[in-house]
């Protein structure tokens, strides 16, 4: 038998169900590996004892790393914020509960940008995560701990959340697969809210099959989230070998200037592979996508400023201040929030304040309508929109922290799909100077199974080797 750590999650589940591997052996191997985490990917680990998993559970006891944004009963859920340090919620997020019930017990909670605000994981109150491909670089963010843990083989698979790219971008920078599903397919109950009209949970995995398997058990309606629609049909496990008849659209607005030459090279090689597999590649216009970052950085901070009003030192979390109630609020928030969170609260509060609301929030929501319309029109002539996931490979720790706008532009290729609410995957396309480059494939709402199937065929043609990061 090969080393259990070399198995994908789906392979491990198959071996456990066949009786060739015990769930306990799998748990112990990963629990020990995660305990040796030198990347700061984990914020806390589950007890060492292997949890009981039903013998017939579909996910067969394959351990799961969970982003610290998800509430987990009795286990610190701090969203990597000092304000919530030590907070142990009285309930568990629906997405986590579903996966536990399906047989994927929680291995630990992963590091992230505070309240999911960031693209590098450098905004964590508990220190940055290192990229396993090069420890002087960021893993991306905000689900940086989940991405680094999977890439480094500290966990077989993980879940994260994506508001403007927080699953796809770290997946790309760490050389793994990440899926942002259609808005509303997975319950947001128990996900500490950042921007409620955008937030969506999703899988971060070693390959496309693992992503499909995890996603299948995450989607579904929930009495506790009335915006959750579930999925019209079960997520299919991918089998495609060819891309015959499938049309991939490349938006010139997102793939022109601003791409690193190494990223462009991998992207163009990938387009060539699509054609070799029988797919067609054409240009498709997304005329308003150049305004996506502007709209996003109004809408997301505006929603965040309202959502984060609940962190006031009254009901849970840390409290500061000895004076009156107003000082209690202000000092708790002054001491509890990091600089990026304060910046976004300020930006959002300004955008929603009297006299500015329509110029900022109103306009941004109109731009959002235009962007969604662009995708709708594009999908009349193509099956998928394809871009690189990030304009650059992983950048150096500290490189972009001085310039918030430069950091925001890291999300330029992922934010348009978030605003439109459509599903998108990032898969590894290859390496540029030894660092992974992600390719993003987006489709119409609820087209996850089609996206996964096409990605699977492409993944096999690319033959990406993620093992250097697991060394």
């Amino acid at each position, binding site marked *: 038998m090969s080393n259990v750590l070399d198995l994908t999650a789906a392979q491990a589940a198959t071996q456990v169900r066949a009786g060739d591997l015990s769930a306990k052996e799998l748990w112990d191997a990963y629990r020990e590996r995660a305990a040796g985490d030198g990347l700061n990917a984990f914020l806390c680990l589950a007890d060492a004892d292997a949890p009981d998993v039903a013998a017939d559970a579909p996910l067969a006891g394959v351990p799961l790393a969970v982003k610290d944004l998800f509430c987990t009963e009795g286990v610190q859920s701090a969203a990597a914020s000092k304000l919530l340090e030590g907070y142990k919620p009285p309930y568990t997020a629906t997405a986590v509960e579903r996966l536990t019930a399906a047989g994927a017990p929680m291995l630990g909670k992963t590091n992230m940008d505070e309240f999911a605000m960031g693209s590098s994981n450098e905004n964590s109150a508990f220190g940055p995560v290192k990229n396993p491909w090069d420890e002087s670089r960021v893993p991306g963010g905000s689900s940086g701990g989940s991405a680094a843990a999977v890439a480094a083989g500290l966990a077989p698979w993980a879940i994260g959340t994506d508001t403007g790219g927080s699953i796809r971008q770290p997946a790309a920078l760490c050389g793994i697969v990440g899926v942002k599903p259609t808005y509303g397919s997975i319950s947001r109950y128990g996900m500490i809210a950042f921007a409620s009209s955008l937030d969506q949970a999703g899988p971060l995995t070693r390959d496309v099959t693992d992503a499909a398997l995890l996603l299948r058990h995450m989607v579904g309606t929930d009495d506790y989230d009335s915006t959750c*629609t579930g999925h019209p049909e079960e997520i299919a496990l991918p089998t495609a070998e060819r891309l015959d008849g499938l049309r991939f659209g490349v938006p010139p607005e997102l793939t022109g200037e601003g791409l690193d030459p190494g990223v462009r090279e991998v992207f163009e090689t990938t387009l060539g592979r699509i054609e070799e597999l029988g797919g067609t590649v054409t240009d498709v216009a997304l005329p308003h996508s150049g305004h996506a970052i502007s709209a996003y950085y109004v809408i997301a901070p505006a929603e965040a400023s309202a959502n984060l009003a609940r962190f006031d030192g*009254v009901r849970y979390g840390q409290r500061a201040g000895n004076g*009156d109630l107003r000082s209690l609020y202000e000092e708790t928030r002054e001491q509890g929030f990091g600089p990026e969170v304060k*910046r976004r609260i*300020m930006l959002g509060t300004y955008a929603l304040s009297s006299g500015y609301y329509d110029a900022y929030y109103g306009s941004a929501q109109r731009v959002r309508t235009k962007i969604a319309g662009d995708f709708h029109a594009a999908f009349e002539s193509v099956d998928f929109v394809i871009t690189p996931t990030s304009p650059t490979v992983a950048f150096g720790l500290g490189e972009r922290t001085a310039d918030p706008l430069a950091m*925001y532009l890291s999300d330029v290729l992922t934010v348009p799909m978030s605003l439109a*609410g459509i599903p998108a995957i990032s898969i590894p396309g290859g390496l540029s100077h030894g660092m992974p480059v992600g390719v993003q494939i987006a489709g119409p709402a609820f087209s996850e199974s089609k996206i996964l199937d096409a990605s699977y065929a492409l993944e096999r043609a690319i033959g990406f080797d993620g093992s250097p990061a697991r060394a």
Partner: protein
Amino acid sequence: MIDRDQVLHVMRLARLRLTDEEIERMTGDLSSILDHIEKIGELDLDGVEPTSRVVELENVLRPDEPRPSLPREVALAEAPDTDGIGFRVPSPGA
């Protein structure tokens, strides 16, 4: 563009407290971000409906029947200060 007085006003609205140094940095950061954002002013958005939801959804209703909720002691367990009945805070008038 945003000036220092506006930053102070927004800071109070947001129940935040920033040091003088942070206020200065915030003024510069927000100004450069808003400059970028204001490019959406170039678009003709007359007659465009603002997005209120990305996935069409009818009202979601359930029967108005009482269900069990968190027991009081569980809801209060993480409170920084409590008298056992509710969350305790300084008097708003103090």
